[in-house]
């Protein structure tokens, strides 16, 4: 029986024709901020739902001189972030970093770094469901018409129903935004805490949804406004606790359960931010704080 010849892969895995197709989709997406551009997503060597859209976008824009950072849940050392970083280190041989400020491309799942992004940086979001209207209307044929006609009443009705029922908007992540006053866009499942960071960011923001075959983008300095009502303005989560490791406040925290008696502590979700602060001397005793920290939901942005 013959031995199948060993496969050889192009720089950054994808062949150049595929990259060209994806770059065209990216350019179109940048030209129409917030609009979901269909693209011929490829099967990737990691499963759908595990970042194949982000990986294809990154593979298409990556050059040999880029410095890549990959985070998942804000952390560089979560298993999937490690796996994707190792993939690009292997197939593109690019430099990688954990430092937000040093990266030229940051691929992320579920967070935007606490360190503000700078001009010239590109952040690539992994997106599971790119359609912000999907859970209101499951059909693609319908939602495309709704976008075309700018028919976004349903989203506001949903948010209003939340307020009527719970007294709050009960969407805490993947909180819909309006881009340049036109398209309602899904910011990917980042906590709404991160939404304000998208607004007029000097960085280029690209969104890739592999399984759903969509790419969308926010060029630098784009208006990104979280949907709300005049009498119920958009607010973000605020933690009463500080990071138990670096004492940071006004950052997004992970709650870590430390024992089976209700002991828990809060630490920065952004590991690079936390480490940088600690290396500059911000330390606390690290005593676990007992009892849940309250989030102040009414604090206006």
């Amino acid at each position, binding site marked *: *029986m013959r031995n199948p010849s060993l496969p050889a892969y192009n720089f950054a895995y994808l062949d150049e024709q595929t990259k060209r197709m994806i770059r065209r989709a990216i350019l179109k997406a940048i030209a129409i901020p917030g609009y979901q551009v269909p693209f011929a997503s490829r099967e990737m060597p990691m499963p759908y739902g595990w970042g194949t859209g982000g990986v294809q976008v990154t593979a298409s824009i990556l050059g040999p001189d880029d410095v890549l950072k990959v985070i998942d849940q804000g952390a560089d050392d979560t298993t999937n972030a490690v796996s994707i970083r*190792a993939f690009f280190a292997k197939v593109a041989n690019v430099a990688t970093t954990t430092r937000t400020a040093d990266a030229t491309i940051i691929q992320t799942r579920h967070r935007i770094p606490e360190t503000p992004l700078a001009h010239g940086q590109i952040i690539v979001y992994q997106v599971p469901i790119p359609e912000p209207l999907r859970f209101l209307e499951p059909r693609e*044929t319908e939602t495309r018409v709704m976008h075309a006609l700018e028919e976004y009443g349903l989203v506001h009705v949903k948010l209003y129903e939340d307020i009527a029922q719970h007294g709050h908007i009960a969407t805490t992540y993947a909180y819909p935004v309006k881009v340049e006053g036109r398209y309602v866009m899904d910011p990917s499942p980042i906590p709404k805490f991160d939404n304000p960071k998208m607004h007029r960011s000097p960085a280029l923001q690209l969104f890739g949804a592999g399984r759903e075959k969509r790419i969308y983008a926010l060029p630098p300095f784009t208006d990104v406004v979280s949907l709300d009502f005049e009498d119920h303005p958009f607010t973000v989560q605020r933690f009463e606790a500080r990071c138990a490791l670096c004492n940071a406040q006004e950052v997004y925290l992970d709650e870590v359960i430390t024992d089976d008696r209700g002991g828990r502590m809060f630490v920065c979700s952004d590991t690079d931010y936390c480490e940088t602060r600690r290396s500059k001397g911000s330390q606390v005793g690290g005593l676990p704080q007992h009892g849940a920290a309250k989030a102040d939901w009414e604090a206006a942005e």
Partner: protein
Amino acid sequence: MYVAVKGGEAAISNAHRLMADRRRGDRNVPALSVEQIVNQLSLGVDRVMAEGSLYDPELAAMAVRQARGDLIEAIFLLRAYRTTLPRFSNACPINTSRMRIERRVSATFKDIPGGQLLGPTFDYTHRLIDPSMAGDEAVTPPVKRERPTEESCPRVTDLLDGQGLIEADVPSNDKPGDLTREAIAYPVGREVRLQALTRGDEGFLLALGYSTQRGYGRTHPFVGEIRIGMVDVEVDVPELGFAVCIGAIRVTECQMVSQFKGSADKPPRFTRGYGLVFGQSERKAMAMSLVDRAMRADEFNEQRLAPAQDEEFVLEHCDNVQATGFVEHLKLPHYVDFQAELELLRTLRREAEMASADTPMNEPAE
């Protein structure tokens, strides 16, 4: 004190090492060879080729071995390899009427030109576990028929077509869409639907096909014909000006014949559902043809009410590589979003407690 659940490179590589060890199993047992898998687990290999959309038994067998027999994982391996392959050209449509037939049955006619041929089938076996499977008993060689040099085996649906009783199978010169190279925009053509179905999950299509039989989009189907065998794959070579055979593949074809009562502009006649699958897979080809027919509801002014008739529903959910990835991604960390939900839940509960404490019954006097 701070026990983070965050992984790392060491954990990943150790996990993969353990997985490789489990895959190999007891070292005193000889390793499976690719030849053994191709020869003795051939229907599993066929399924991996069909849903992996790549006809290569050796690679499929390697994938089955690498995936420890998890066929969806093996399909995924094959797909991820397939996507990197360059496209040289499109083959000419295969001609199944010139198939070298291994099996051919029709449920609509007792005898058909070319005859019925049972071939290698599980049908009519009694499903009793055969004690000889515990060992390696000699198997008697099969009885072989004289194969006519030029076999005439017209498709049953072509016979009906000659009498105008069935909708005509009109050849088209339109360039077919390509599911793997273009994003789907609904509604799609039938050729794109068939592409999605032929690489779709066997279990999902089986359930959908079954649902049409139980009344969810009923089509009153008959198996016009199922045929399994080898067909030549030919490619047009522009420099030569004629088609050249580049190899042969085994396929299963199913032509389902369904009732159609007719409409104002169309006389009553039979309609077609079509299934074509790599390798030997009757179950898949039959399910595919049922779902294909169900999805053609609009062509016959049938009401679309059932899941099997809904092309967006079927096409968006029939791919098991997509489905398994997205279902299984739920095991990735989600603690940032979970934290956001946790905080909201705590706030809502606190407010609910305060509201119940504020009721007049409990309110202390001023």
